[in-house]
């Protein structure tokens, strides 16, 4: 087998095993939650009636032993059935379908912004090592990774939306605006596909503030990482040789330095994505961005077991997929893996 194929298959196998493990973890954790979901869901009147409680338990499969519940759960998952939210009585899959694109769009915008700005700043700092620019960039990136995201969200909201009125502060679109026809679930992309330019501008303007806040910590992370990767590459023999040959510095930078540095930078993207999702949980509420983060928080605090399981699962699997993609990219880019 081609070494690259074997590498990819191994990563894929690990991913599948992890996904299975995640179902086990979400299921176990959700069942640790104290309190009776039946009471919470039915309300006082109905839960005083044993017949209704019994029926509800049967409907929800809550009367069976845990291992049986788990196997049922897995079977349902494979059919795309994530259960019914105990709180809203709406299928979790449906609610996740609504919430997921919101967070995905936000996270994608944030990660693109972080990559552009982070790598740019990292490169700039590395190339001017020891200069004022380097110090300023390092300071800014340090502040970026050190500031609590939820606090930054509040500060940004207060200054940019409340005081300066520069950008809209909450939601994905202006109130009352009709979302574009659903294709990808990303309002920016869908509105372009439908040719609704006003909606595109609206969606984009709503995306900027939460997207930037969310990106700040990953920008810090990527800047620091890009800087040190570029410095590593700059000290390598082939780069020195290229420079010694008299190649123009911009050519050297682009052809050798950036390419060499890209491999380690890519490996950190998975981590960056994880920190974005964590940030989403803490900031979505501030920006009334009705995504996975807000859903996770509400589900956990309201004892909505299927919702919590659903979010854990979706986030966990997304995270695995992202890391898988990173591994694949890494496999293609790193000659040691490609040819080993």
């Amino acid at each position, binding site marked *: 087998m081609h070494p690259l194929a074997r590498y990819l298959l191994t990563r894929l196998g690990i991913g599948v095993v992890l996904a299975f493990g995640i179902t086990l973890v*979400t299921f176990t954790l959700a069942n640790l939650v104290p309190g009776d979901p039946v009471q919470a869901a039915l309300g006082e009147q109905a839960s005083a009636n044993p017949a209704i409680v019994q029926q509800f338990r049967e409907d929800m499969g809550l009367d069976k032993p845990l291992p049986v519940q788990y196997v049922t759960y897995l079977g349902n998952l494979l059919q795309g059935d994530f259960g019914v939210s105990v709180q809203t009585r709406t299928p979790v899959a449906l609610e996740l379908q609504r919430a997921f694109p919101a967070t995905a769009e936000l996270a994608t915008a944030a990660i693109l912004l972080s990559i552009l700005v982070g790598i740019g700043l990292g490169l700039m700092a590395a190339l001017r090592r020891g200069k004022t620019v380097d110090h300023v960039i390092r300071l800014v990136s340090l502040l970026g990774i050190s500031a609590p995201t939820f606090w930054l969200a509040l500060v940004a909201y207060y200054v940019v939306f409340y005081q300066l009125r520069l950008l809209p502060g909450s939601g994905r679109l202006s109130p009352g605006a009709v979302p574009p026809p659903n294709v990808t679930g990303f309002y920016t992309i869908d509105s372009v596909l439908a040719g609704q330019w006003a909606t595109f501008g609206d969606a984009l303007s709503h995306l900027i503030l939460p997207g930037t806040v969310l990106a700040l910590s990953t920008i810090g992370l990527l800047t620091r990482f890009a800087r040190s990767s570029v410095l590593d590459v700059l000290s390598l023999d082939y780069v020195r040789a290229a420079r010694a040959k008299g190649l123009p510095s911009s050519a050297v930078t682009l052809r050798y330095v950036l390419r060499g540095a890209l491999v380690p930078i890519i490996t950190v993207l998975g981590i960056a994505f994880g920190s974005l999702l*964590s940030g989403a949980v803490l900031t979505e509420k501030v920006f009334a961005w009705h995504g996975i983060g807000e859903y996770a928080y509400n589900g956990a605090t309201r004892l909505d077991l299927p919702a919590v399981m659903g979010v854990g699962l979706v986030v966990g699997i997304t995270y695995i997929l992202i890391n898988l993609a990173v591994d694949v990219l890494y496999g293609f880019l790193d000659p040691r893996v490609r040819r080993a």
Partner: protein
Amino acid sequence: MTAVENTRSRPRRFALPKALRSPLGVIGASIIAVWVVAAVLAPWIAPADPLAQSFPRLQEPGGTNILGTDAVGRDILSRVIHGARISLPLALLVVVSSMILGTVLGAIAGYFGKVLDEVIMRVADLVFAFPTIILALVIAAALGPSLTNAFIAMLVVSWPGYARVARSLVMVARQNEYVVAGRLLGASALTSLWRDVLPNVISPVLVLATLNVGAAILELSGLSFLGLGAVPPLADWGAMVSDGVHQFSSWWIALFPGLAILTVVVAFNLVGDSLRDSLDPTMAKAVNGGKR
């Protein structure tokens, strides 16, 4: 740690003094020192009792209350100072406990290999398969809001980083001749692990721990912000920022505790960076592998 002290010419790369020579490291250490002093002396230096509702509500900064008052008339400055007594020790406790737990598990996995290794590292992989806050959120919500439960949640999500680093370092170290020789001379597996292998692991793990203090403070305050950590009326920074969400136009309620978090985390990151820079590159790489 006498076992470590008494060993003869084993590697002990405790690089603390050198690290502290870097100017940024000095700045970081000084900020931490200021906060530690503030935490220790809080009852004496804070102008008011952090819990006493003895002032008019929602006073702007600058008057009797230098940083203003909150929704029930407590002095924000006093609460921010007292907040250091919660955030700092708890974050350190999280880091130290997860370091010990992770290092021990990682060392066992690396030294004994086979089934133990598989089990421990697969569990670690599973934890790594979740973004930290999501898992911590679910655990803390499952156990109920309290600092103890926030601590447990953080411990569960934090140990695998140390386990990975410790495991990889132990796997390298146990090939060393003096380790093999020690076993041949009749040292038991545990003695060998404790006396010959662990000293190789300690300094990188400590550096990783220092680097993680900042993240631990951020995550703990995040849990408190979500209402899953500190229980009111405790003066906890994250919880204070969350108070500010409900009193938005009284910006001072959220601003100052947030700045407190920012300065402490910056300080720990400065010190952590300096310590890492003082490690040799291979070690530094190993340390990076444990970060998330």
